[in-house]
């Protein structure tokens, strides 16, 4: 646990747009350790996605430093250090579920037999065994989202970046996937960075909650959760839970001064 | 009285007589209001006549007789062109000296009704037109002489008054070429006659109109023969497309004058019979299958010319 998985110091990122510069991130400092489950929460436009994309080297910071696994973000991307899960499942409709999960493996040049095993394993991991031959549109939204998580798990990345992966799903399905995600995290010991809009979700899942506020995008609060790692769904009705939730909501309210 | 005349090609000196008659007021003198409709590629004058788009048309006799057999009874009422201007023009260096040398060669021919004289000629010579060593390979020639110049064909169809001049204009000298005039080969067919629908001739008023029309037209033709320069300029004035050039039209008028020279407008029955004989000899796919009856009348010219 010596090396932090993600280390950002004084990170700023400005977009040049037609209407002038947009300060998506300003002076962000954050350290994420191996095995952490970090949630990012904040109102729309506060830079959550931008931060995640910077970690994934899909955007390039304007200033400050950012290291992933001790490398630069770009090196980490080339080393295929992480799996990225987007808000929508984004499965390729012309590939079966199995084919979609095989996609990164094909690109990274895995062997045939190895691919077969891995696909089988991750499908079991996300409880989709038996759906390998189906096409994405033949599955419900929740199942598609699990398939896209499986796709990110198929290759050996220790870091999982998830940008509102359950944003489009209904609450009940979401509860269920949250439980499963926690179990998966416990089993695999991956480091997870997770973006969400939902306070209960953030509190329920995380060991560390990062509250952000917009214009310019910055971190207003980092809350280390005192909750145990083992979390039944009922934990959400405990006073500790409600207290953390309260703190998060206050943090959000504070950073959300302007009109809706 | 209104008369609409459908030409069989674009405005050029080939039709000088009619434009002269129009410009010099010969039609007006006969109390006629004449509209000259230029033709163009793919406009079949008989079709225009059948559709009622014109009162009279100019046409080559093979095409007109074919239309007659197809059930469109057109009748020749005047024949300003005495002789044929159609010929084949070949490169001398292909070794062609006579029709029998055509075997194994590629020849450009106009279609759209203009192919009949060629097909008759070949069948009289006993040469197949399906290609091979013993036959000729026929190309459907476009609208210009490029196939010859670029040697895509060994021979092409030309008119004495038009394309042949274009070949010379392109810098080719006459002694590089061998020509075969249909007139000389005995397979000439009558060109550029005036035709009307048979049923219209039953109407005396129409007949009278045509008498005046032919009379004025022939007056125009004779004037054009005598004043080729001026006639060419009149044609140029009437060319809406602006494509024609002066030099070209003047030369064309000169050549045209040779073809109309022998005619006073009336059809010589001997020419008619020769045309029919040529067409009937048309081989496997003859243009006409029987000697046509009533395909021409001398009534109009008789009345017009006395």
């Amino acid at each position: 646990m010596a090396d932090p998985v993600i280390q950002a110091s004084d990170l700023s990122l400005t977009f040049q747009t037609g209407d002038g510069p947009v300060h998506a991130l300003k002076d962000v400092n954050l350290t994420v350790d191996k095995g952490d489950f970090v949630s990012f929460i904040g109102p729309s436009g506060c830079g959550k996605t931008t931060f995640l994309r910077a970690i994934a080297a899909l955007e390039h910071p304007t200033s400050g430093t950012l290291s992933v696994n001790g490398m630069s973000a770009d090196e980490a991307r080339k080393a295929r250090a992480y799996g990225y899960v987007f808000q929508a499942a984004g499965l390729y409709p012309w590939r079966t579920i199995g084919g979609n999960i095989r996609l990164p493996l094909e690109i990274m040049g895995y062997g045939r037999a190895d691919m077969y095993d891995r696909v089988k394993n991750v499908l079991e991991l996300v409880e989709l065994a038996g759906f390998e031959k189906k096409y994405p549109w033949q599955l419900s939204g929740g199942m598609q989202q699990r398939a896209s998580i499986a796709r990110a798990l198929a290759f050996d990345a220790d870091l999982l970046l998830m940008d509102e992966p359950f944003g489009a799903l209904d609450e009940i399905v979401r509860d269920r996937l949250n439980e499963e995600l926690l179990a998966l995290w416990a089993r695999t010991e991956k480091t997870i960075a997770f973006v969400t809009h939902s306070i209960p979700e953030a509190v329920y899942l995380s060991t560390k909650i990062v509250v952000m506020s917009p214009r310019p995008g910055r971190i207003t609060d980092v809350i280390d959760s005192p909750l145990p790692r083992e979390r039944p769904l009922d934990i959400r009705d405990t006073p500790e839970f409600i207290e953390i939730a309260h703190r998060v909501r206050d943090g959000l309210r504070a950073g959300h001064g302007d009109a809706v | 009285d209104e008369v609409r005349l459908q030409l069989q090609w674009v405005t050029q000196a080939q039709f000088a007589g009619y434009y002269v008659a129009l410009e010099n007021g010969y039609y007006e003198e006969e109390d006629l209001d004449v509209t000259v409709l230029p033709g163009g590629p793919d406009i079949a004058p008989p079709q225009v006549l059948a559709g009622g788009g014109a009162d009279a048309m100019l046409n080559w006799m093979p095409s007109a007789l074919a239309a007659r057999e197809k059930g469109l009874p057109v009748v020749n009422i005047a024949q300003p062109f005495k002789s044929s201007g159609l010929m084949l023009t070949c490169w001398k260096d292909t070794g062609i000296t006579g029709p029998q040398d055509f075997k194994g060669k590629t020849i450009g021919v106009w279609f759209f009704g203009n192919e009949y004289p060629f097909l008759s000629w070949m069948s009289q010579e006993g040469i197949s037109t399906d290609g091979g060593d013993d036959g000729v390979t026929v190309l459907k020639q476009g609208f210009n002489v490029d196939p010859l110049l670029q040697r895509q064909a060994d021979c092409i169809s030309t008119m004495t008054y038009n394309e042949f001049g274009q070949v010379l204009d392109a810098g080719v000298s006459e002694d590089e070429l061998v020509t075969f005039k249909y007139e000389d080969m005995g397979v000439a067919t009558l060109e550029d006659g005036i035709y009307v629908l048979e049923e219209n001739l039953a109407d005396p008023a129409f007949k009278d109109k045509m008498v005046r029309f032919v009379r004025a037209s022939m007056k125009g033709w004779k004037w054009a023969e005598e004043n080729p320069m001026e006639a060419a300029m009149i044609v140029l004035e009437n060319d809406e497309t602006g494509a024609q050039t002066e030099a070209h039209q003047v030369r064309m008028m000169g050549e045209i004058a040779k073809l109309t020279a022998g005619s006073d407008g009336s059809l010589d029955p001997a020419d008619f019979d020769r045309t029919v004989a040529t067409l009937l000899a048309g081989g496997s796919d003859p243009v006409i299958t029987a000697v046509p009856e009533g395909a021409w009348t001398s009534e109009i010219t008789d009345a017009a010319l006395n």
Partner: protein
Amino acid sequence: MHWVCQEREFFWLGGLSVRRFREAMGTTISAMVFLPLFVLIALIALARAEADGGMAILWVVLFAYIGWQFVDALAGWAEAPGVARLVAPFALGAVVLVGWEVIVRALDVPSVILPPPSQIAGTFTGNLPTLWADFVQTILKGAMSGYVIGCLLALGVAILVDRYDFLRRGLLPVGNFMAALPIVGTAPILVMWFGFDWQSKAAVVVVMVFFPMLVNIVAGLADTSAMQRDLMRTYSASYWQTLRTLRLPAALPFVFNGLKVSATLALIGAIVAEFFGSPTVGLGFRINASLGQLALDMVWSVIVVAAVAGSLLYGVLTVLERWLTFWHPSQRR
């Protein structure tokens, strides 16, 4: 006067009762009744045309109305959409053909202006070998070879254009300009360059299909979401890997769009080019020569060949599209 009055009333009653009749009798019987009625009314309309122009127009309206009722009845009769999709166009075709035949015969239109369908059918079946040879020459040799070459060329250039942004910005505007060159102008030039046989026709087709294909393929290759492209970047996939696994499959719907547009262009191009010079075989040659011979029945037979060939090609493309882009929402049932 008296007669006209009665006729007018009859007309309105007839028109109105059609609806009732269809409701009462059901579609099958009405369809069987409407077709002969259609012919009858056509004949009356023509007969009345001589006597009374105004009345004739009413009859013609009724004629069109009954014809349409026939199509409508048949379309409604086929409950299953698949069957209706087949039956309805044929019904409309039948009405048009019958109307055409009746009008041409009744008005004694000269066959050098418009031959009746029955005569065209006779000519068509009587000249199958000739038409087949023309079909081979123009469609198979000229159009198809040009179509294939043009589409492959467009694919190659599209990938280049896609790869190098400089080319995209330079070539696409120029390409759009060139696409506006009217084919009738280029055909004589290409016949001059490539000779009289099918090669020049293929060249015309290549020129015609190239730009629509290029534009469609380029648009198709660009039709991936930012998310899909980002996904490939997180895998640090190479250009060719991205092209093969993401962009080509995503471009397929556009490619088929282009292929369909180009298919009709290819046929038209090959036929038109023959007007500027050809051997003595080919659909364009046949049209031109037959028109000169006033063999309008032959001209129409060639048009039938062209239309059938075009529809077949279109159909094949539709099936292929269904098969290859089964995943696209527009193809899912």
